[in-house]
């Protein structure tokens, strides 16, 4: 009864949003991506047994799998943090209605267990289980083994819920998960506590003695109850209002005057970034982006694959561009009507965003110079990538913004609203990364590394030369979609 109402509310919220109607293509892409993963997992599930049997003929494939489960679960936790969207529900209108608070919370928690991320493992685990049974493993034990994995997956689901609700209130929202996963990995790696054996023991225990399934079930219930308690305490208006009044940090941004006309908006953008949680996190991601090169460069296997340098270069110098740029002009969606009726020229507004992104590329390039320690080619590739980012990608992402129809509510602080990073956001980065990679890869393959860098730089310079013209095209596109954008931005999500 109540459940039915909740579901119908969500259904309407989803399909009646302007965002849904405008981005069919994106939705289709997401479905394909999901299908891809389903198929890969199915394949993995079927093929894993024969492969292991062949590679390690003297070992039991099930034991091998069990010993790697820890890494599987750890990856699961990290992936979920970045890609799984937690259920969002606007609870305020429900608070005064005759609905028990408990019910709302149970619903939100229950809904999260129907996430795609919880079903994905099924596609690998069940075929693997079937293969085990075919190879004369005891059926009951295998079924309980599968159940154990599923329950642990659900444990991870609710654990992630806990992490997200914890970190969404913090400044550096990415830090807790990275520290957590990193330290687990390290503790395991240096054998302080062997989680690999621990997880493997638990799962094998369930396999040999089904009664042991109680352990993961108890953990699951405890986690559920903790989540329940936390969420329920957040279900009051004042608990979200408590943090309301922030002390104002006034800063004088006189240095932006150097940028002339664009200064007014640049000041506004800088305040936007510093004073709102969501855009602020795109600043912290810069740090992660900057360290990204450390994954590759110290590793000798990549030293001989210079095509990687361009990839890292585009990513490192363009990370702010991708993160901040893809939400232009949605950052300003809250007061878009005002901007449109104010005494401003669209061009000036867009120009300030462009300047900001260009600056960020420059700064990131300078900060990435120390990577030259790993080889001069890296510096060359980064420079080429930076020029390409400035010349081409800034324009591409601004142009893409004209198709932006999703409002970002900077002011919101409602409980249950994590506005986390969903998979959709990462998809938009693909053309921005893939095109330069293809260009570079092709010229590297047919000619040489230097020609590849040269091609990227020349393309970038062409973009710089035609900047005025490109901005004009972009501005026209924005003006053409002005009314649609105003309408979409004034719609509540």
């Amino acid at each position, binding site marked *: 009864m109540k459940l039915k109402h909740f579901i119908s509310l969500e259904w309407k919220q989803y399909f009646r949003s302007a965002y849904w109607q405008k981005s069919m293509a994106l939705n289709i892409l997401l479905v394909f991506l999901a299908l891809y993963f389903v198929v890969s997992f199915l394949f993995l599930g079927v093929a894993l047994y024969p492969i292991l049997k062949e590679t390690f003929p003297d070992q039991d494939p099930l034991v091998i799998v069990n010993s790697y489960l820890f890494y599987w679960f750890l990856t699961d936790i990290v992936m979920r943090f970045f890609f799984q969207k937690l259920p969002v529900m606007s609870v305020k209108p429900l608070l005064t209605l005759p609905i028990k608070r408990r019910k709302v919370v149970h619903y939100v928690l229950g809904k999260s267990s129907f996430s795609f991320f919880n079903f994905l493992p099924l596609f690998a685990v069940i075929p693997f289980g079937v293969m085990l049974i075919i190879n004369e493993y005891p059926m009951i034990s295998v079924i309980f083994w599968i159940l154990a994995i599923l329950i642990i997956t659900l444990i991870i689901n609710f654990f992630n819920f806990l992490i997200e609700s914890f970190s969404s209130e913090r400044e550096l929202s990415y830090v807790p998960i990275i520290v957590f996963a990193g330290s687990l990995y390290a503790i395991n790696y240096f054998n302080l506590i062997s989680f690999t054996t621990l997880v493997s023991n638990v799962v094998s225990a369930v396999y040999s003695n089904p009664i042991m399934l109680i352990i993961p079930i108890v953990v699951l219930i405890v986690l559920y109850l903790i989540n329940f308690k936390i969420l329920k305490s957040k279900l009051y208006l004042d608990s979200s209002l408590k943090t*309301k*009044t*922030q*002390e*104002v940090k*006034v800063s004088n941004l006189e240095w932006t005057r150097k940028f002339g006309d664009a200064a*007014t908006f640049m*000041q*506004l953008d800088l*305040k*936007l970034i510093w*004073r*709102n949680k969501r855009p602020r996190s795109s600043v912290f991601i810069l740090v992660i982006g900057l360290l990204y090169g450390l994954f590759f460069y110290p590793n000798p296997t990549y030293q001989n694959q210079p095509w990687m340098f361009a990839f890292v270069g585009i990513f490192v110098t363009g990370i702010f561009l991708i993160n901040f740029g893809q939400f232009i002009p949605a950052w300003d969606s*809250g*007061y*878009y*009507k*005002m901007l*449109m*009726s*104010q*005494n*401003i*020229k669209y061009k000036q507004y867009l120009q300030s965003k462009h300047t900001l992104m260009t600056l960020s590329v420059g700064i990131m390039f300078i900060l990435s110079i120390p990577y030259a320690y790993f080889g001069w080619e890296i510096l060359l590739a980064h420079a080429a990538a930076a020029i390409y980012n400035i010349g081409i990608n800034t324009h591409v992402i601004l142009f893409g913004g004209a198709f932006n129809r999703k409002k970002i509510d*900077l*002011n919101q602080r409602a409980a249950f609203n994590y506005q986390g990073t969903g998979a959709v956001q990462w998809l938009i980065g693909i053309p921005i990364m893939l095109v330069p990679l293809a260009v570079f890869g092709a010229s590297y393959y047919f000619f040489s590394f230097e020609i590849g860098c040269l091609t990227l730089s020349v393309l970038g310079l062409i973009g710089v030369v035609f900047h005025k013209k490109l901005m004009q095209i972009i501005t026209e596109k924005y003006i053409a979609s002005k*009314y649609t954008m*105003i*309408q979409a931005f*004034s719609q509540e999500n």
Partner: protein
Amino acid sequence: MINVANLTKSYGSKTVLKIEDLQIPKGQSFGLIGNNGAGKTTFFSLLLDLIRPSSGHIKSKEVLVNTSEDWKTYTSAFIDESFLIGYLTPEEYFYFIGELRGQNKADVDALISQFEDFFHGEILNQKKYLRDLSKGNQKKAGIVAALIGNPEIIVLDEPFANLDPTTQIRLKNILKDLAQTKGVTVLVSSHDLLHVTDVCERIVVLEKGEVIKDLATSDATLKELEVHFSGNETFIDNAV
């Protein structure tokens, strides 16, 4: 000053606004009233080019608002809270608007100093962001921001709603002063008949998107409007 001709706005087959001819001269204080859905906000949105007219046009000082952007230099508006930038302090917001309208800090300071009693000590130097102010105080900030930069046309949608009685009275004085002594064309919509008749020299009543009354305000206007909106016009007419 403002010239409306054959203006219509429809969504699908439903026409929400249909004004054949409406002239608003310079320096007039113009009041727009009507029940919910009468088309008041639609009209203001068309005037500010926030929605596209289905047919016809609005000319503001001979500028076609939906083709040129030149009207923006002398027009300002406060429609709702979405005109505010939540993460700025009121002062920063005033300076920001001031810069868009070519005013330096000193100009803006000089203007807002006139509104100290209107602000009632709750807006300036509060060390608070606009998003943390109450609805009423947000409205005060938005209205004053619309006065920055000597606009010739000021559009205010429901400026009296959410304000406390003292502020309502002060706002009325401000609006009267703008039209009478500074020659500013003020367009105001409201549900409060008393306020509109107090402030505006001309009142237009919209119903289902059409102009059904166009009155020059006199002593009898309030009575006439009350009768109209109570829905039994003929009955009272006969009684009088």
